[in-house]
């Protein structure tokens, strides 16, 4: 942003005006690229025409909504980060427990996005009740992979099938992994699970012509997933069947300019994502809040997933 953020602790309070200003400042160039592309104007013209549009938007009546959806802000920031060299970005996730409503949409979205079979879950949400009637609290703690800076799961792998990539994501090389599951035991967050090659519908009835039947109904379960930007058809005993699996911050989506599936579908807007190396980013701002914490910090894993309480 072109202005210092002031003392407000939470980034969500960014109003539309600030946001647009920031966009014009930092992201403006990026947007200009596109305007250039679309309108075939020269860059200066493009920027000024874009800024003019923003001015209109800012000052138009009837649009001064209080808060802009953080999803929009994060999308812009994501695209900004993608312009940098991969090693210059540092993806982090911030989960604002004050906003998490325990809907589990993230869990299910992740399962659907990554075609996770029974036994594999990347991001369960842990529910907990605290207190005594009538002074009760409920806490919902989503648990993706922490993408540890110091990941205990990595050094244990006998074949180097899991490693930290240049952007800080702990990746899996499915075709390398021998499925020894050592990494699963080593992860202190139980963030790794094992693909046993099951499908959810396989126990169901098969009576073609009378009912739809599981042979047809499991077609979506057998569809390819696109983790790590590769296509993995679920056939035979091919990877990732037989492998350890884990959350990968939806790298295949990030690379296409999309936020991770769990972030996109977070109805509480509790899961936030971005490049911590970008000082203007929402996540950079949030991880500097006083109410930030990380899970099992005492282990020294240095998670890249931060929680706000």
């Amino acid at each position, binding site marked *: 942003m072109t202005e210092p953020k002031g003392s407000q602790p939470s980034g969500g309070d960014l109003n539309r005006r600030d946001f647009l200003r920031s966009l014009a400042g930092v992201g403006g160039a990026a947007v200009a690229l596109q305007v250039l592309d679309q309108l075939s104007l020269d860059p200066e013209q493009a920027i000024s025409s874009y800024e003019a549009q923003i001015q209109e938007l800012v000052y138009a009546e009837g649009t001064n909504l209080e808060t802009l959806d953080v999803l929009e802000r994060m999308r812009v920031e994501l695209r900004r980060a993608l312009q940098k060299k991969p090693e210059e970005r540092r993806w982090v996730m911030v989960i604002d427990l004050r906003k998490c409503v325990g809907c589990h949409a993230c869990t299910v979205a992740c399962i659907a996005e990554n075609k996770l079979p029974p*036994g594999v879950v990347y991001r*369960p949400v*842990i529910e907990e009740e605290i207190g005594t009637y009538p002074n009760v609290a409920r806490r919902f703690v989503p648990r993706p992979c922490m993408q540890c800076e110091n990941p205990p799961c990595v050094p244990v792998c*006998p*074949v180097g099938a899991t490693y930290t990539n240049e952007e800080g994501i702990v990746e899996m090389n499915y075709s390398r992994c*021998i499925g020894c599951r050592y990494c699963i*035991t080593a992860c202190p967050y139980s963030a790794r*699970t094992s693909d046993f090659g099951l499908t959810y519908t396989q126990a169901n009835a098969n009576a073609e012509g009378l009912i739809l039947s599981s042979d047809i109904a499991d077609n979506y379960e057998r569809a390819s997933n696109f983790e790590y930007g590769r296509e993995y058809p679920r056939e035979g005993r091919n990877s990732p069947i037989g492998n350890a699996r884990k959350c990968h911050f939806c790298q295949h989506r990030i690379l296409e300019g999309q936020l991770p599936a769990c972030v996109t579908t977070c109805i509480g807007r509790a899961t936030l994502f971005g490049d911590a190396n970008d000082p203007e980013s929402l996540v950079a701002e949030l991880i500097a809040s006083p109410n930030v914490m990380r899970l099992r910090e005492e282990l020294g894993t240095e998670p890249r997933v931060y929680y706000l309480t």
Partner: protein
Amino acid sequence: MAQAVQPQESVVPPTEAPLPRVRFEWRWTDVFWILGIILLVVGAPGMWQRLTEGLAPTNLTSYVPWGVWVGFYDYLVWMEVGSLLIFTSMIYIFGDRLMPKIKPIVLFTGFTIVTMGLLIVLLDLGHFERFWHVIVYPDFGSMIAWMVWLHSSYLLILTLELAIVLWGGDRFKSFLKPLAYISLPVGLALIIVSGSIFGVVAARPLWNTASLPLMFLLSALAAGSGLLLFLIVVFWQNKQSDEYVRLVKRVSVITRTLLLAGVFAAGVIAFTMLYKGGGNPTRAEALNLILTGPYWWSFWIVHILLGVLIPLGILFTMPSKPVMAGIAAFLSSVTFVAVTLNIVIPTLVTEELKGLATAFVDPKLSLDYAPNLMEWMVLFFIFGIGAVIFGLGMRFLPLQSHHAEESHE
């Protein structure tokens, strides 16, 4: 494997059925391969499932990724490496003169068990066809990688030793000592590494203690000496001889000492863990699970009573009754599997994050683990393979004819 060391001057054509004119003579050791075949048959369905459906039919889950197979693996390694460590050091370090007499049997037993262990490890992999990745894409930081290398090396050394003992001319005999010397650190390392596999896992407080590898070592030695004692009692040829009683006694003393030491060490470790439990609830929880959980009996009855107290009682009270010592040895070495299982499983069935088990519920995300029939069947199959190898070895290899080479001491 077995076929790889086909005897040169074989009595029987290697693969075909025995020729009719050779009269078949039953020996008591045929019990091994017959038992083996039974085990193979019994275990076959499980093995079939394992090969066609992978790990899905096991009771393993994502939260309890290792189970009875890993426990048995460690157990087999303990027994074998432990027994060979004692055996080898007794011969080469302490200059025991009696021991070499059963060298072929001990080596062959070792060979069989190590082969079984390797099979178990292979079958436990989600992608065993990628086994070679460990060699092609080695990761030196990984205890499993080391384990695989050490295990393979150990197998190689054993095979060589065995081959030399069985068929090696004098020219090769001179390699035996260096091989034995190499086998010591490799075996030691294998045990320590197999302990460190667990020990380095900071995520699991019950495992993550520096004392774990030490405990592994002590336990391996205890279990191994039990096995050794057992082998002596069973396979010593001249049971009337003085040597026999002497040797049994000697090994009994070793065994009971190691058992005591192991139990003492384990007790101290457990006590400190429980004591410090206040500081580390997960550790205490796992430990309590071992001591008082649903499988308390496997610890108290199988391990402590059958595996420690009774053998100790026998070994202390009747040190010169070889048959009783054999029983004690058998009990202690067989029940040691309870220890490895108790190390592997309870710590895994303890939630790392409270509430995780109910956060997303699936049979494959369960923390309840007990091996199912299929897992046992696979183990039966592997024990079947082991028993067949052993039985065939007993029948076709000159394991008992060659009496130990003249010692070099």
